[in-house]
């Protein structure tokens, strides 16, 4: 997975996406802008984060899941 390492920790790009999601519900375009990543990487990354239960999809937008928030919390400390 490009966003989550085999040890379960998010990669640098995964962390940037989780941080972008923390600011609220966002479209892939908004998250790409906020995270400073190419749109194709964000679309692919959001699939991974959603499959891993770290993000939730609502229509065409995404938000941080409680599990994603927990993981992000451990990274900040």
């Amino acid at each position, binding site marked *: *997975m*490009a*966003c989550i390492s085999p040890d379960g920790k998010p990669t640098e790009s995964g962390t940037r996406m989780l941080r972008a999601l923390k600011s609220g519900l966002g479209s892939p375009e908004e998250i790409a802008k906020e995270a400073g990543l*190419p*749109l*194709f*990487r964000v*679309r*692919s*990354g959001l*699939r*991974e984060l959603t499959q891993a239960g770290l993000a939730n999809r609502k229509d065409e937008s995404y938000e941080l899941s409680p599990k994603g928030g927990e993981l992000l919390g451990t990274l900040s400390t």
Partner: protein
Amino acid sequence: MEEVRERVTSLPRLGEPAPAFEALTTHGVLKLDDFKGTWLILFSHPADFTPVCTTEFIAFAEIYPELQKRGVELLGLSVDSVSSHIAWVRNVEEKTGTQIPFPLIADLNKEVSLAYGMIHPGQSKTETVRCVFIIDPNQIIRTILYYPLTTGRNMDEILRIVDALQTTDKNMVATPANWRPGDMVVVPPPNTQEMAEERLKQGYECIDWYLCKKKL
């Protein structure tokens, strides 16, 4: 006969939707859909750790900033593993200082190669030839280039084609031979006699009614 026809009709053609794929790459699993809304250059190379391909990769990396200015992403492909791609990309950076910023598809099962007609058995039964597919934001194939195994691609021409396609889309014009940005463009030929007569009064630079050029 039936088999040959099937094979021919299954090849992608200009003006048709690019074949969908989901592939393992050096940037994770990517789908063609992930590139929707941006231009995409999907290109294949014969194999990692080979001389001509290495020069091409450095050249693609060099034009990448120019492509980005034009809203174009790059996606490479060969019938090699992700581990091989990673090792090669790292080797290129270590030996030449050039970072490869774009993803590479590891097409070991040849699924994408076959869908895009990248394997030409007369050249090699196992390696992809040097293909370039320029795909527009609506995921329509706009240009296909094939180069033989022994001939490295011309990056100036790839940039020139992108410029020409984007100019055509924006201004509803065509571009003449050897056109470069800033040169005059070709006004589409008229469809009726009335249009042909009007055309000659519109201040275009015309050789005759069917070949008129204008500045943008």
